[in-house]
């Protein structure tokens, strides 16, 4: 990692700085478009947030872009009283329950693929690479059948297991790229010290791959948190709903109460927003490094 992200970042800065600072004059077109795009991004977000604090009457009567004259928390109260906490807990269980195992098994696989030898490991690696092209949608009918036959329909397992499976290809790809960058001398030194491969994996490769591990954890966590198709097809009990699905049903229930619907949109996004504010740097730098590799 020290060998990986650090040079990328510094070279990025040093290449970027003179390019735009001295050799390049102002990029008017890009600048204008950049600010315009900011407006396109923020106007709907702003509208969602202010509207969620309006009363229904206020919503229909007032200027939509004006902040609420008398802000109300009633919409949030309504959403929270409608089992939001349960759906939130469901989402947390599914997201953590799928992301953590997915990253751990992918890391072990990535370690084996980089450090191990033999034709079959190469075969497994190409199988994972081919897996990048499998769309979840195309496999949903057999997954539905499997879950019914296993008696797992309407269970957390039904949402977690396929989520892990579809997170594996990209996670293995990114992690193996990073494990490959750990200098061989370090592995040799561990071996001299009598460390087993298992110990080397956890005590050497794991800490050194940490930035990549954090990145894929955030990325896959986001994917699973926002996942809609699996919950839609593999659950039908209200107690099993995760947030995106709850949002959808809530919208059907309260279609006339737009501020309440938007309050639920804000509430489902808030936890991710908090995580984003905390882990933003990691996510952004990790994503660029992960995808440009």
């Amino acid at each position, binding site marked *: 990692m020290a060998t990986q992200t650090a040079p990328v970042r510094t*070279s*990025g800065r040093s*290449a*970027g700085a003179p390019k*735009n*600072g001295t*050799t*390049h004059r102002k*990029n008017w077109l890009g600048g204008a*478009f*950049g600010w315009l795009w*900011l407006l396109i*991004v923020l106007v709907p977000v702003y509208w969602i947030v202010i509207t969620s604090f309006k009363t229904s009457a206020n919503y229909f009567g*007032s200027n939509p*872009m004006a902040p609420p004259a008398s802000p109300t928390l009633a919409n949030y109260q309504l959403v929270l009283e409608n089992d939001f906490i349960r759906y939130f807990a469901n989402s947390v269980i599914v997201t953590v329950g799928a992301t953590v195992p997915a990253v751990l*098994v992918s890391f072990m*696989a990535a370690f*084996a693929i980089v*450090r*191990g*030898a*033999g034709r*079959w490991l190469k075969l*497994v690696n190409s199988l994972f690479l081919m*897996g990048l*092209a*499998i*769309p*979840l*949608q*195309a*496999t*949903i*009918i*057999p997954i*539905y*059948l*499997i879950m019914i036959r296993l008696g797992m329909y309407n269970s957390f397992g039904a949402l977690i*297991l396929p989520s*892990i*499976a579809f997170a594996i290809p990209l996670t*293995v790809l990114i992690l193996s790229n990073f494990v490959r960058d750990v*200098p061989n001398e370090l592995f040799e030194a561990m*071996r001299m010290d009598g460390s087993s491969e298992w110990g080397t994996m956890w005590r050497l490769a794991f800490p050194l791959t940490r930035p990549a591990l954090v990145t894929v954890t955030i990325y896959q966590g*986001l994917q699973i948190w*926002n996942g809609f198709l699996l919950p839609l097809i593999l659950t039908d009990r209200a107690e099993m709903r995760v*947030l*995106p699905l709850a*949002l*959808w049903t809530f*919208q059907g229930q309260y279609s006339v109460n*737009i501020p309440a619907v*938007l309050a639920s*949109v804000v509430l*489902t996004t808030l936890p*991710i927003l908090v995580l984003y504010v905390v882990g*933003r740097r990691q996510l952004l730098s990790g994503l*660029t490094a992960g*995808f*440009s590799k």
Partner: protein
Amino acid sequence: MSTAPTYASGKVTSSKRTSTGRLGWLVLPALAIFVAFAVLPLFGVFALSFSSWDGIGAISFAGFDSWRAVLTDPGLPHALWVTFLVIVLSWIAQTPLSILLGVFISGSQRYRAVLAVLFFLPLLLSAAAVSIAYKALLDPNFGLGPGLNLGILTQDWLGDGTLAMGVVIFIIAWQWIPFHSLIYQGAIRQIPGSMYEAAQIDGAGRVRQFFSITLPQLKNTMITSSTLMVVGSLTTFDLIFVLTAGGPNDATRVLALDMYLTGFRANLMGPASAIAVILVVVGLVLAQLLQRLGGRERNSQLEGA
């Protein structure tokens, strides 16, 4: 660009690397889950396309019935056409703007870093949340348009087929342009500054530099980004399902949605499986095409160097 040195160094060290053959078992947990819930279902969907199943009762062999039904149904060419439109239009909408935005945020001014943070917000929202918000925002009676008395915004956005398609493309762009501009930003920062300095000495202007240095250097990134865009558009489901449910009049009924509605609404799992197989085949063909394109570009770049 960025891949070349890393991969090369990776290969060099791995040939010198001491490796052991006894690590195979470490891949077993990942392999087992992946095979059980991704690979087997892929074969399963192929098998189910030759069966008759209503989703609840018994499954029976039905030969080519489902395939005959799907291939003769005018709904399939329509769904393929709509899917094609979504892929091509969202690519056209996203790629130039992502590059432009990528060039812009790859600069070093501090406010650009702040902008980049804000640009990223739409990506955090689930497709369901985004669709629900836009549905309210674009409401012809109570949305932003009528509220602000803006004639252009006051239209039955989701009630007209062409407009609904436009909204779908716009929302995809709204959510994903920030992500792709981030990928481009990463790639742009890897372009050696010396190339620009040399170009400037040769008297090349800003626009000229962009077209003869930046754009050619971004070719590989464009392949990566385009692949993600194409596969993403091909499998767009939640967004359209929540926004229009395929309407109006099937105007936004893409292949993935067509499969869902056939299987889980009309309870025809056989034909739905056949559609799923078509989805896989289309995806593989597109990914191959893009990779070919990428391979050729890479070679020609090498020849040029």
